């Protein structure tokens, strides 16, 4: 279920300018459509995570940039590991 920018701001509790900066930094990559960006649930969850990193955990912008990059790689690794786990499970004698 994708939503417009306005609905997204409301769901994530954000201001428009902040989101524009985050998109420019590629922290958020909404789907681009002719009627403007569309945000998915994963974008909302990611925006909330960014807010928590900043407010509760005290990460600054440079830190958030690094954290998100490593986190995306971590999820990539988990995917790869999961694919391997399934493969091993299917091919066990």
């Amino acid at each position, binding site marked *: 279920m994708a939503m417009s920018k306005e609905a997204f701001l409301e769901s994530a509790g954000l201001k428009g300018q902040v989101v524009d900066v985050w998109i420019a930094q590629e922290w958020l*990559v909404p*789907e*681009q*459509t*002719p009627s*403007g960006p569309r945000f*998915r*649930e*994963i974008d*909302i*969850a*990611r925006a*909330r*995570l960014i807010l*928590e990193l900043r407010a*509760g*955990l*005290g990460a600054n912008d440079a830190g958030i940039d690094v954290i998100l*990059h490593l*986190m*995306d*790689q*971590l*999820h*990539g*690794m*988990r*995917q*790869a590991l999961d*694919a*391997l786990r399934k*493969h091993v499970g299917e091919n066990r004698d």
Partner: protein
Amino acid sequence: MTSPYDVLGVVPGATAAEIQSAYRKLAKKLHPDLNPGDKAAEDKFKEVAAAYDLLGDADKRKRFDAGEIDAAGAERPPRQGYYRDYAGGPADHPYADASAYADFMDGDDIFADLLRRSQKGRANRRGADLHYRLEIAFADSIAGATRRITLPDGGTLDVKIPPGLVSGQVIRLKGKGAPGGGGAGDALIEVEVLADPRFTREGDDITLELPVSLGEAVLGSRVRVPTATGAVTMTVPKGSNTGTTLRLKGKGAPRRGGGFGDQLVRLKVVLPSPPDPALEAFVAGWAKGQAFNPREEA
């Protein structure tokens, strides 16, 4: 209920800085997104976050210490889902990143092969179809045309309108949608034909009402008639009337199976305005005309 001070592992007299530091240490270990493999983290983090909501805010902490609010008052509404719940699913999202194991994919072992295949499956997904709307003139819908639309990203797309198109028809431009590893999606252009006050389309035929003068109707004439593909000359037979419909063969919309519909020209006799005294004098002295009652026929 455990005291929020115990949850964070600080003494009731702790400074704000000590509370913040305790929270950050716990959050690092318990935040579900910082510990994607720890299923139990979520519940524990919820407790820690609630305690910090209370003690991390000087005003709320003061009221809690004074016994005005209890720890239950700081409970959070259920949270809608952590990032790991989405990023941990199928990797068909823009944040998927394989760079952490890219070097493992270069080998010729079974692991490298497996990684390459899972990566390829992801990359082979086709791009999304993009939807657009286009308004065209009635004449263009009959004769066909090429129209250029400007895309939101500043690019353009040339759309060929096939002759005979009707409102609501969708033109598919293969490969002009969003890019994707498995090829770009399609652009789908819904065309709206703007109404023309002169023409009405009924199936493959086009109807037009054509005003003619009394002289042209009574005596017959050759007149110019607009059609969707340009004006043509047509014969108005002698003795034509309002409502007389003439057929221009092949001047309608293109037929599906080949050939064209017709244009139906419905004549409308129009008297001169302002009224002409000579015509009035003629009609007044025209005995047969006075005797004719068109309502009797009906």
